[in-house]
């Protein structure tokens, strides 16, 4: 029995264990779930060490061509502070590391979100209603622009949704519902694709190892 066949069996049996959850919770699922959690946690630890900490930190602190770059001690110390969470007396120091993570994340988000999610979308919505020509495009474009504007009205929090604002918000939530329905329908296919992929694995890779060829 080759390593490849053993691998296929491992994968297939674990898959079946996890699928058994669809019926109800059972010892097979519990086993696979616990194994999955443990192995994946271990994988990410190793992965972080090998792919981030060694190349992006250690090899910069102590470059292979020799020398020592003390500036890289700073992230090292901050990382250490983060781990001080484990020592109650020193736990407060981890706030410094947390502050760096949150600050950098917030700074990146502001520009990235404003650029890609707000300004670019506003820019894309500024169109001539007659664009494309013909009454059908007029109607479509009007639906689009009204949808964006009324959708935004729905997200008004500091104005009561009454009168004109209420009417617009109602149109807004209606458009949102149509959008969510469409997005759901569009996604069904992807979800089934995944099942197809797993089924193909079981039917065309695992069954043949037992001499069953479909």
């Amino acid at each position: 029995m080759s390593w490849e066949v053993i691998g296929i069996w491992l994968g297939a049996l674990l898959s079946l264990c996890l699928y058994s959850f669809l019926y109800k919770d059972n010892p097979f699922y519990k086993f696979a779930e616990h194994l999955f959690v443990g192995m994946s946690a271990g994988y990410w630890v190793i992965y972080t060490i090998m792919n981030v900490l060694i190349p992006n930190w250690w090899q910069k602190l102590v470059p292979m061509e020799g020398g020592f770059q003390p500036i890289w001690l700073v992230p090292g110390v901050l990382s250490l502070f983060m781990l001080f969470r484990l020592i109650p007396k020193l736990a407060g120091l981890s706030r410094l590391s947390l502050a760096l993570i949150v600050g950098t994340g917030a700074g990146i988000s502001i520009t990235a979100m404003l650029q890609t999610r707000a300004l670019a979308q506003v820019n894309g919505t500024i169109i001539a209603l007659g664009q494309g020509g013909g009454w059908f495009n007029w109607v479509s474009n009007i639906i689009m622009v009204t949808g964006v504007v009324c959708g935004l009205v729905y997200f008004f929090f500091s104005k009561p949704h009454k009168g004109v604002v209420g009417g617009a918000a109602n149109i807004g939530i209606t458009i949102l519902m149509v959008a969510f329905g469409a997005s759901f329908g569009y996604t069904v296919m992807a979800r089934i694709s995944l099942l197809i992929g797993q089924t193909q694995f079981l039917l065309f890779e695992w069954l043949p190892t037992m001499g069953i060829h479909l």
Partner: protein
Amino acid sequence: MRKMLFVLPLLVFTAVMFAQSGGLASVDGGGCFIQSLTAEDAPNDAGGGIDLTWTVAAGTALPDSMILERFDHDGIWSPISTLAPASGRKTDVGLDNDQEYSYRIVPFYNGAGEEPCEAVTAVPQKQWIHTGRIGMLVTLTLISLVIFYYIEHGKRGGKIYIRRIAGLTAVEDAVGRATEMGRPVMYIPGIMDMDDIQTIASMVILGRVAMKTAEYGSPLLVPTCRSVVMSVAQEIVKESYLQVGRPDAYQRESINYITDDQFGYAAGVDGIMVRQRPAAIFMLGTFYAESLILAETGRSVGAIQIAGTAMPSQIPFFIAACDYTLIGEELFAASAYLSREPKLLGSLRGQDIAKLFFMIVIVLGVLTATVGEAWEPATKVADFLKTITRVE
């Protein structure tokens, strides 16, 4: 109010919109197979770059290949790149700022280099303002000003209304119901790390939910996908229990790390759901494909589910499988809604004004663009609006 001072430097940047061209050097080939070669400082970079463009003359014999050479302060011409024998552009990078560099192109026929065309010179410089992002800088400055203005307004006791958000009025009922049934409350903060703004928003809401579970005395389970989120959650929940006066009821071990793996996390949380049978499940934060795996399992154990995310692709699944869903920005309004803290309500008011600004831009832009098709001058307004919302 002091906080608003930060905008001053931003305004100064905006004021220095002056052009900073490093000078455009250009030569006409004059008989050479290269019709024109230009070199100029690469725009909007931290320096060290020179943009080169060249066009090949039509009607002359094309060389087999061309070599781009650079003359730098070492005083020698050194080849830096082989070019395809066609018109093109290239950016030379890694240069020293404020030094002069010259470039020329040497043609190769049958493997032998011939007389190069005339050289051009440019000086790389760093820029202090990204010219393609000035519109965005102005917008960001305005939005920040408005938000901080209303935060101050709220702090000073200005009255700010907040509309009803169904999912959030249900928080208290959900926790209450869990207590009656003697079952735990589960809080899932998404699968991203603390640098994600949705996770941060979720942590703030967690503080509020924890106060409720502390008051009602029902156990709170917080399985997390990230280590940092776990430790922040522990800190926040502990603080909430302390504030409500129930530090004894805080259980650190019920807030734990599962695994960084997206589906490993989903498998683990599903397991906890079917075994602990929480009566209320909160799913607030950034979610990807695991959203429906969690929500359907939560549904099958009969929990009241309140979900919220700004991920457009996952909202439909939460709507289908949960009792209440906070859509997009509602997630960020949650902390203000639950706490009614004036500064947060103020911030929300500021966000509304910012949205109003974008709505006006859209409506004005669409109207002028539409009118512009019949009456030319109106397009100028639309073009202006498109320019300020375009970001390079």
